């Protein structure tokens, strides 16, 4: 059983759709609710990875600093995850995460989740598989963005 508000939010989150209750229980022990205000920085590029988030509401911009400008590479919102690198060892944050709208999320200590993954391989497989889906989706999106399909050249590389 998952009686807490955190447990209920976990159960409803698309990232964890179809996850067995035993494993949801385990995750709920590690989760706590956080909120961020508009324009608040959740983490900066190069920060040591610490927290992993499941976003319940709001919108976060993943930003990169380029000479003379800041570029938003992607936005992530309700039903999505943020901060997958916190589950990997020796990977710092890849982007700056800034709230474009107020954000409510469930936060997890990445090191603790990673330790649980090592301990309980069924749990670890399930988490890593879902992270892989997220990373693959973002890689595919980035490839499409690199193609620049909406430009006048329509994605033709000459």
């Amino acid at each position, binding site marked *: 059983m998952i009686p807490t508000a955190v447990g209920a939010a976990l159960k409803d989150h*698309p990232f964890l759709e179809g996850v067995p209750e035993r494993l949801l229980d385990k995750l709920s022990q590690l989760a706590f609710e956080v909120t961020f205000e508009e324009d608040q920085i959740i983490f900066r590029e190069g920060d040591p990875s610490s927290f992993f988030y499941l976003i319940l509401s709001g*919108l976060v*911009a*993943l*930003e990169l600093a380029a000479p003379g*400008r*800041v*570029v*938003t*590479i*992607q*936005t992530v*919102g309700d*039903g*999505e995850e943020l901060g997958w690198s916190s589950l990997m060892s020796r990977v710092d944050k890849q982007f700056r995460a800034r709230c*474009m*709208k107020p954000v409510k999320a469930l936060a997890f200590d990445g090191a603790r989740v990673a330790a649980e993954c090592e301990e309980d391989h069924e749990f670890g497989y399930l988490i890593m598989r879902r992270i892989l889906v997220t990373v693959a*989706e973002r890689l*595919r*999106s980035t490839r*499409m*963005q690199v*193609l*620049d*399909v*909406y*430009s*006048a050249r*329509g*994605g033709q590389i000459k």
Partner: protein
Amino acid sequence: MSLALETPAAAERSVMEPVAARLASVAKETHDTFTLNLEPPEGDPVAVFQPGQFSMLYVPGVGELPISISGDPERREQLTYTIRSVGQVTYQLVTRRPGDTIGIRGPFGTAWPMKESRGKSVLIVAGGIGLAPLRPAIYHILRHRGDYNRLVVLYGGRSPRDLLYKKEFAAWGMLPDTQALATVDYGGVSWRGYVGVVTTLFRHVRMQPKETVAMLCGPEIMMRYASRELETRGIPPEQIHLSMERNMKCAVGFCGHCQMGPYFVCKDGPVFPYTSMKPYMDLYEL
């Protein structure tokens, strides 16, 4: 330079003969895209079109191009076209002045399945200039709102400055049973909306896939990925429709320039069911 165009009566006209239309107005949509309103002769069948069809626009002495009609199909006194200036003919079209004459042939091609979509939700997925051929379908749904269930418009663009019809798009999102979401590939700090490819918006849509008809128009790569993703999400492939773009010249299937597999895009399309296009969209040789 301006060459005169004579318009024979509709009954005596061949499909290759343009009608002379007066340019009523030109409005700047973005840094490179403009919307032209043309006035054809009163009552001429050139102005009677279905959402998704296109016309051939002719600049005397310069050339002719296929351009989708982007206006309201029930406003017959004007024909509206949204044109991106990317070459000699499009440049000449968007730099014409009100009062100038432009030749029109058409309308040509197949239409969005408006009748077949009645009673269902409609999911519009547009990329870049691809919103223009879909706008008549949106107008039609809004005029006949009771005939359709939910309307969702998802729109992807290169950057915020490239998005078309910004005010109108925002207004669509405020209507009941209507959702309008835009995303861009590259956002600056002043952009407060979504950033990412248009398929990333699918997760924000609440629809019954089996009761949904999808209409897609944009770069072919975008439509290919979007169609696959919609199929994965449960929309039957026969309920997914695409507007294709190829090198159309004659618009009536004579010349063969726009052939795609067994189809001529000008005559058999531009709107096709995904089931017809699927085998050819993945072919690297086409």
